[in-house]
């Protein structure tokens, strides 16, 4: 009889009868006990990131935001810098080695080739500083005060625009084992409305689960957490859910970033906020913050050769210059420059498996305590 009553109670919770929220809870948006089939169990739900794209606003022909055209990439720039002139011979040092030097030792001196900023007044993102400034953008939905200076720096770079080859921002990036980003929402009473939830980030240890085709991510998988080597990826964000949308306060965050097993160059994001539509089986929306420019430059060049950067016409020396020019944040601890930006992110639900005796109790505060160099 006891079991029967408990089962009925659990059923009522899953179906929303016990909460009075209505039919929408029947989809599993209310918390339930383990084993009842709900994805929201014990007031917690986890998600694993399956897609991460730089949120750059553009128009189909680009004429509005890029009146000077799309920027040249490494190969085009090389041709401009070292044109074929009859009788002219270049040395290896003044051509290839010189360009390599610029990549690894970037400069803010004036670019030798034209590299244009986006003129768009519209950008994706969030109001990171709580102000509406002269340089702030308006979101496509009309929200004022959007901080996204990366839109200005990268808006005319093919690699980050819609329908580009987008080699280095493709979905598979997050399938790679090191790059598993897990968010766990705790203290959740409802995925529809809850004015106080906690979001904790982790590095996961398991490849996200897909269907038999490998193309579609499936909910219901499990992610073990890297609590041994991945403590730097743990950040806590205070948040609330309103009408199914989670928004968090800002906290510094380090995102694991490795390139196909050969290089590990994690990236710091300062004052990171999340705005996600959260559902039982998935979540999607924006991650916004200030990306550490040195981290980004290091990661880009470690993980992507000039050969690969050329596919997306993404020239890091030029990108770096524009990022530094538009930097709008300086990390008080490291003194590093950062630039406001946003990522379009997608997640699939996972069950978060904490190591025995180590259950989400790590408080990392709000700031990473190491620099990118320290982490290597």
């Amino acid at each position: 009889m006891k079991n029967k009553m408990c089962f009925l109670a659990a059923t009522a919770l899953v179906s929303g009868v016990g909460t009075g929220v209505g039919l929408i809870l029947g989809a599993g948006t209310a918390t339930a006990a383990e084993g009842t089939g709900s994805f929201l169990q014990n007031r917690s739900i986890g998600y694993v990131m399956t897609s991460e794209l730089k949120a750059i606003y553009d128009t189909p022909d680009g004429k509005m935001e890029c009146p000077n055209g799309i920027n040249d990439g490494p190969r085009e720039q090389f041709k401009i810098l070292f044109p074929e002139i009859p009788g002219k011979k270049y040395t290896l040092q003044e051509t290839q080695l010189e360009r390599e030097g610029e990549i690894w030792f970037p400069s803010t001196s004036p670019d030798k080739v034209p590299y244009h900023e986006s003129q768009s007044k519209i950008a994706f993102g969030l109001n990171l500083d709580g102000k509406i400034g002269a340089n702030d953008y308006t979101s496509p939905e009309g929200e004022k005060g959007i901080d996204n200076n990366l839109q200005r720096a990268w808006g005319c770079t093919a690699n980050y625009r819609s329908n580009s080859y987008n080699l280095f921002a493709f979905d598979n990036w997050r399938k790679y084992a090191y790059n598993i980003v897990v968010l766990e929402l705790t203290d959740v009473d409802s995925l529809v409305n809850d004015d106080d939830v906690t979001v904790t980030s982790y590095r996961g240890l398991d490849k996200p689960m897909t269907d038999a085709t490998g193309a579609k991510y499936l909910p219901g998988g499990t992610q073990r957490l890297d609590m041994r080597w991945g403590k730097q990826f743990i950040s806590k964000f205070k948040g609330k859910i309103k009408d199914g949308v989670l928004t968090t306060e800002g906290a510094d965050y380090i995102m694991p970033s490795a390139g196909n097993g050969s290089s590990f160059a994690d990236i710091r994001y300062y004052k990171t906020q999340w705005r996600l539509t959260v559902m039982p089986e998935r979540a999607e929306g924006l991650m916004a913050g200030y990306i550490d420019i040195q981290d980004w430059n290091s990661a880009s060049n470690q993980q992507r050769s000039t050969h690969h950067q050329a596919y997306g016409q993404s020239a890091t020396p030029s990108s770096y210059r524009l990022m530094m020019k538009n930097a709008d944040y300086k990390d008080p601890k490291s003194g590093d420059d950062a630039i406001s930006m946003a990522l379009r992110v997608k997640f699939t639900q996972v069950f978060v498996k904490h190591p025995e005796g180590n259950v989400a109790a790590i408080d990392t505060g709000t700031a990473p305590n190491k620099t990118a160099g320290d982490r290597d």
Partner: protein
Amino acid sequence: MPLFRSAAGYSVTGVIAATLALASCSGPAAQKSAGVKPTAIAASDAPTDGTARRLRLVTAEQYRNTLAYVFGPNITIPSAFAPVTRTDGLLGVGTSLAGVTASQMEIYQKTAATAAAQVVNESNRHFLVPCTPKDTAAPDDACARIFLSAVGRLVYRRPLAEERLVEYIAEANESATKLKDFYAGLGAALEGMLLSPRVLMVSERGEPDPDHPGHERLDGYSLASRLSFFLWNAGPDDLLLKAAASGELHTQKGLSKTLDRMLASPRLEAGMRAFFDDMFMFDDFNNLAKDGQIYPVFTGVAVQDAREQTLRTVIDHLLTKDRDYRDLFTTRSTFISPSLATIYRLPTTPGWSPYEFPADSPRMGLLTQISFLAGHAHPGRSSPTLRGKALREVLLCQTVPRPPANVDFSAVENPASTIKTQRERVALHLKNPVCAGCHKITDPMGLALENFDGAGQFRTEEKGSKIDASGSLDGKEFQDVTGLAAALHDHPQVPSCLVKRVFAYGTGSPASADEKSTLDYLNKNFAAGGYRLRNLLRTVVMSSAFSTVSSPTPEPAKSASVVHGSSGASPVKTDIKTDAQ
């Protein structure tokens, strides 16, 4: 109002009513297989006419296990033998009715050749062949005799007759001479041995029973084989053959001692896994598939893991923990793998791990495991009828007749239907008197499992409608699956069905009407022993019915004459007539 209730509070009239319904819904077939009466009459282990002597085909798993125990687990047998017909609920019984076709012989030949080649290859010969030939490029009578007599005894399950052993040695020598390789010759002879009808078939032989004049009993080696295939799903080992040779198996003390050893052996797990795999009809999982669009989480790995989960649960519950068989239908203890955790919606870790469903979880017992829920459902939706039918047939040993050939399925298979829930769908059955007769005995308990979809995932709604999971089983009504689990736990036919299946599996014959007193005796002892499997196995083996036999000794068919030899060796002739001993 029931006339009276059994000790378990069960409505006896309900059980009888269900039995009558089964018997009446489609005539004689159903009547013949109606369940055992729940109220066991006191019975004794009086000598009976015995079970029939059988000629049974060895299954692929038995063949594989036997060779693994003789030569070690590194000898891999990749072949799958042809399926046999399920008879009276068991493939194990169906092996008595199987024939061997030419194409099957090809499979046996390839299997034997593969196994023999591995045994004598350079990696294995030094520890699998217990002697060294004087010259590896020439025949060696003495070494061939040592190897072939030892192996022959284990795979023939009795000592090789000297005449046959000499023939095998001659075949080994002839091939060794032609191939200039002692081990190749030995392999050819072993291939012939492994292909022998005496190896591929278990032929039971009788002898007069001196303790019960007028009755026959299995001879020692036949009893050893019956014991071994029953408990270990493999041929007898050396000690068992020694016990057979010494006559120890024909004494109560000797048989009991041997049984103790066999029940304590790790091989018992393989034997009981094979039995429950057979009883639960898990061979159906070889062909089970779901619509990937509807159930993307139900992967090929999940199919295999679902089968494995139930077998692990059963073995852990009945053998490792030695618990009440009936509690299998209410237990919350199980094992979880990553592919299953996705369907159960649980966190997990890589590999298999034990798991206990919380007390307020709707998952309890075997009926809520994916093997039952997905195994008895349609590719794209659940099926109260298939689940109810399986419950009746697999767990209660009843037979639900097949639908008439001219049944009209249009109402339930209309793609434009506005039906939302399976309860509404199966209600259509009840509107047609032709359908209603049988669906009344399958659907009410199947509907209690409607909180689980066709892949076994928990749900509270179907197409937006809240699911009503109430149902009934033979007079017991309940509101959900927990009630069904409790009802099944207390159903008197649950333990008696296991007894019936175990007895049939062990003896190779479905229990006949003449064996009612034996089954009554076994049922009574099963209950008295707290419904423990080991106790049941002991009672079955120690019963006089297990070793007493009735019909004349069967012989393998004498029409087959097989020539084989795949490695350039002399063709080895396995003639039934000369192979018979």
